[in-house]
């Protein structure tokens, strides 16, 4: 694993800015990896051994994902929408798992650890670098029982929603009164007033050649008229 300063610099660049949450996230990930004995989590050898459950969608979450290399699409990053500054690091090979929780008292202790810095965020940023892990975090040893449908790898199951026909992957369907439903049909959705539309330039593709040729021929035909 790279040293803290390098990880922080690169993580902040990937995230878009340097902030106290980045410092906490980088340190949380470094501690989590150390606890489950992964020293190079992004290496080819270790990347498939690691799952991280992130419990917040804040700057810290991005830093944890950056340092560990876990990704939503690889199914190695699990987002648990708890609003809690914590992440659980699972070693799939040993089944060891540790939940690292950022302490609330660290916020109150920032002025004590960086008293020479008066502004809140720069003070927190520096203080979170100075605090030992024991002040910045609490750790729980936990057991994470993962369903085979949550594991990385190919899709293990696909079914269609009996109401809307939508394909649902990885056992995320809901059985209701004997009917297989997708979650939107069974539990409601985060959006409303859904209405299917057409949109300008609908036939755009990243590979434009054929479409451009077609459009150009059509234009010539118009001119010939």
């Amino acid at each position, binding site marked *: 694993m790279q040293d803290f300063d390098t990880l922080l610099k690169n993580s902040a660049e990937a995230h878009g800015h340097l902030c106290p949450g980045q410092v906490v996230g980088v340190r949380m990930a470094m501690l989590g990896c150390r606890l489950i004995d992964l020293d190079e989590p992004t290496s080819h050898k270790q990347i498939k051994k690691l799952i991280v459950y992130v419990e917040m969608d804040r700057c810290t979450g991005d830093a944890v994902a950056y340092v560990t290399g876990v990704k939503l699409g690889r199914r190695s990053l699990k987002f648990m929408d708890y609003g809690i500054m914590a992440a659980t690091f699972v070693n799939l090979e040993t089944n060891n798992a540790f939940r690292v929780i950022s302490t609330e008292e660290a916020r109150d*202790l920032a002025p*004590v*650890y960086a008293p*020479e810095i008066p502004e809140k965020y720069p003070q927190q940023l520096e203080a979170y670098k100075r605090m030992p892990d*024991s002040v910045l975090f*609490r750790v729980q040893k936990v057991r994470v029982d993962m369903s085979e449908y949550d594991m990385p790898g190919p899709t293990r199951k696909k079914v269609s929603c009996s109401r809307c026909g939508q394909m649902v992957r990885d056992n995320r369907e809901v059985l209701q009164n004997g009917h297989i439903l997708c979650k939107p049909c069974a539990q409601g959705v985060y959006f409303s007033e859904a209405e299917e539309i057409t949109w300008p330039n609908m036939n755009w593709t990243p590979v434009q050649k054929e479409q451009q040729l077609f459009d150009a021929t059509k234009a010539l035909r118009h001119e010939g008229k």
Partner: protein
Amino acid sequence: MIKTIKLKDAVGMKLAHDITEIRPGEFKGAAFRKGHTVCNEDLCRLQKLGKNHLYLIDLEADEIHENEAAAIMAEALAGNGVVWKNEPREGKIGLKADRDGLLMVNVSALAAFNMVEEVMCATLHNHTMVKAGELVAATRAIPLVMKRAPIERAAAIAGQNGGVVSVRPLRKGKAGLIITGNEVYHGLIEDRFAPILIRKLTDLGSEADRISFAPDDTEIIRQAICTHIERGCDLILLSGGMSVDPDDVTRKGIRLAGADEIHYGAAALPGAMFLVAYIGKVPLIGVPACGLHHRTTVLDLVLPRILAGEKIGKKELAFLGHGGLCQDCPECTYPHCAFGKGN
């Protein structure tokens, strides 16, 4: 796990903790010690102490008794020069200096320690001069029984950088004094600075090895500094010439002598025009004229720290600000006052 039982049913059981008795203005201490077997004769006294029920403790594997917790925490809190005995009284363990010296408190670690639930530690102020055997801190767990993990986390926090409290011995400084100022050098007035500085040095176990007088002349001041260092002085105190008048040239003399680090100005009153500089490892202290008039000045705050081996720089002089205002009492009670206690 803790169970509560009625006092009348407690005969024959061992007490789970010390039971405190307070007689206002007369006594506060353990009336009964942990482990004491309750007998019929005790019941009346226990009732007078307000005890109609007692605890029966059956510790789970992940639980810890307050006495064991206090010992774990005391071990972690105690740094060099601090000792403690595993003899908790009413759950408390005192930490004592095992030598004379300067108490150093890791204030951030102390704050972090106390932010852990159910534990506490209170100390004397950072940078207090203490004697061997003096109580410098005390710790206890708040409840009678608690989980072991938070106690061990608190201990880890306390143990960072060698504990929360330590006592540094003061080295025996061999000081060179340079009394500057034309008025003294030419005999217009009698010097009163040297006796004051000598007393402050000897009070701290150091000695004034050499004294020289210099007029307001940078070159002569430079020479005096260099001569003192060549002749083995490991600490230089310069008085006068620290102000903003054209005749105040001591600072320039210090610079010419080769000081590679000069910090002028301290956030303390009296003593704003205080100076600390270093030539190699030899500290130079510029004492402003306030040292003549006030019994206690910034010198009394900084000199013990320098003799305890602390490197004093901009930050240390700036942090004196909180609590650095002397109240100039008609009768000075320092160190038993707030002066210099804020950092």
